[in-house]
């Protein structure tokens, strides 16, 4: 007896099962799921694969997303413990790893997260040798270096989410101070994603008007308007949110999705993301730090050469040596 499906539908050609814009997210914790929902709602992928070691949580989250299928345009959502579900990905987002506890610094998480990467990365590369990798797990700059080393991929295809979120928080807070929407407030934070990030005050502007040209003291200690506090608040943000709600998710999810958009759609927009900076700003070690990068379908295709003043360059170099001090002791 023929099924309802056979009676209803006349099949004409074999279904093409190869996706063109597959994204895999490793880790279905708060950050991974925030990335997932944002990517789905922004219509960026035609296939989404989720991977995690906790089987129940993974399945539950996948089903919950699938049940929302009616409301978005990503026809295939799959998941599994095995990395084979990630095959043929254009982009793999790594959010897995231990998370900061209240009061804990990102650097403390390093060795725990290196061990997680050791098991994950070779399998990912095996299944999607042409993919770009986007690292979100903290401490992101060090882990981007670790992933690069473990993957054997060219450094241009291994990108750390870096200061993309710091810069977003920076722009949001500038927007609050001025009563202007953040997307019209421009400002860049580079260097380490974390306590020693570097705010580039000379670049902060609205409609091309440099705020520093209006107040040369902007961002210094003698600035009566205390703009420097905005950077302080950015650095303190994650700790504050973790203290209040236990973790951060939305800010990082939205900022990662913005990077995904540039990569998958080959937009060549500029983002402050973590990339290999050996050779720039007098840095001699293989360090990943955030600088403005052009992001497209091949990953980081170009970087913007920002002129740093002596103070900024010193802070940048300080970030580099802080990170190198930890990296040099890592056991792979």
């Amino acid at each position, binding site marked *: 007896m023929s099924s309802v499906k056979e009676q209803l539908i006349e099949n004409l050609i074999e279904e093409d099962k190869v996706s063109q814009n597959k994204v895999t997210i490793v880790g279905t914790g708060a950050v991974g799921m925030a990335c997932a929902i944002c990517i789905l709602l922004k219509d960026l992928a035609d296939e989404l694969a989720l991977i995690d070691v906790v089987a129940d*949580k993974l399945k539950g989250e996948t089903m919950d997303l699938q049940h929302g299928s009616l409301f978005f345009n990503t026809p295939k959502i799959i998941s599994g413990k095995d990395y084979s579900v990630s095959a043929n990905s254009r982009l793999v987002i790594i959010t897995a790893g231990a998370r900061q506890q209240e009061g804990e610094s990102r650097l403390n998480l390093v060795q725990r997260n290196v061990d997680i990467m050791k098991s994950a990365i070779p399998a990912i590369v095996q299944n999607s040798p042409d993919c770009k990798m986007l690292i979100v797990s903290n401490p992101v700059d060090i882990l981007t270096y670790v992933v690069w080393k473990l993957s054997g991929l060219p450094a241009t295809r291994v990108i750390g989410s870096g200061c993309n979120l710091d810069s977003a928080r920076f722009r949001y807070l500038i927007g609050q101070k001025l009563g202007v929407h953040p997307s019209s407030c421009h400002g860049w934070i580079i260097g380490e994603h974390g306590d020693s990030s570097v705010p580039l005050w000379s670049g902060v502007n609205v409609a091309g008007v440099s705020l520093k040209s209006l107040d040369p003291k902007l961002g210094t200690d003698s600035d009566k308007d205390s703009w420097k506090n905005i950077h302080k608040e950015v650095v303190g943000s994650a700790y504050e949110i973790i203290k209040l709600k236990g973790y951060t998710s939305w800010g990082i999810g939205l*900022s990662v999705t913005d990077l995904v958009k540039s990569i998958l759609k080959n937009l060549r927009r500029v983002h402050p993301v973590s990339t290999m900076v050996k050779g720039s700003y007098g840095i001699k070690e293989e360090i990943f730090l955030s600088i403005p990068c052009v992001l497209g379908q091949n990953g980081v295709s170009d970087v913007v050469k920002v002129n740093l003043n002596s103070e900024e360059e010193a802070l940048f170099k300080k970030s580099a040596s802080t990170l190198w001090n930890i990296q040099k002791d890592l056991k792979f």
Partner: protein
Amino acid sequence: MSWTVGILRASQRAGTVRANFLCLGMAPSPRPPAALPLGGAWAMAPASKMATVKCELMKNCTSEEPVRNSKISIVGTGSVGMACAISILLKGLSDELALVDVDEGRLKGETMDLQHGSPFVKMPNIVSSRDYFVTANSSLVIITAGARQEKGETRLNLVQRNVAIFKLMMSSIVQYSPRCKLIVVSNPVDILTYVAWKLSAFPQNRVIGSGCNLDTARFRFLIGQRLSIHSESCHGWILGEHGDSSVPVWSGVNIAGVPLKELNLDIGTDKDPEQWKNVHKDVVASAYEIIKMKGYTSWAIGLSVADLTESILKNLRRVHPVSTRIKGLYGINEDVFLSVPCILGESGITDLIKVKLAPEEEARLQKSAKTLWDIQKELKF
């Protein structure tokens, strides 16, 4: 920008403070305010006459307060409330979002986290507070808060606890947004929609229960899986009570207008060799299954509520299976709320679709009505 500086100096010399020139006598507060007064998007604090960067940069043209046309308030910042929030934000549905919760720490943390995504989304103003005044002038208020069922607790007891919570909630909401529409998501949704209606004294068109909107979405997803077709093209309705006793209306299930029942007369019955009945079974089991695996459900309910929100705020007049007052239909005489296909627009539920139900489907709705009324009649308001 020498001309702005020139104007500043001229005004100071003249000794006048022009009301609409922001700089003189006013400076923005440096910290993002967590709770804002009515209509005030950017809090202003009187400060010294120091020329700030803001003054140097911008010339203010109006001090008129913005009128919020599509303000949405979400009561409850748990997983469901936040999933509603992110879905609404990513769909760009509101120009102001207010969040209310009793847990101030979580409320503040969630608000900050959303705000930090501002550069990536046309983020509207987001305000939050324990106090309902932040919800003032909302077009739509979404209620996700409420007590969760405790182990071994009877449904009646759970509902009575929620009546107490809703009492305070409703009086505050109504006070600050007397003309809003309410979407009730908290469970048991059909009973709590009735409770919200009673306590708010709103006309019934403005009190909407999320009801079977999600059940129907899951139904369509699972049908789509069986047929390898996108769920958007699979049509089917689950009506009645949200939960274990929901009613899949098999006669209406169709693709491109072709009713599946025409192709398989036994569809949905026990005799059906393809056991399509299991699709409905899976829908009913869904929530329990997901809760067992990840602890709660969030994404699908958030997306489905955002879908309802879109219809209401944009006055789309699309049809959704939501919980509404059903007394007088299908032989039901009790004052209960059940899901039927409703037209959703700017005034809430403006019309409902009179679905022809099979006698046994109608009987199930009547049974649900009786069960709900048995609990509702014991409630003390």
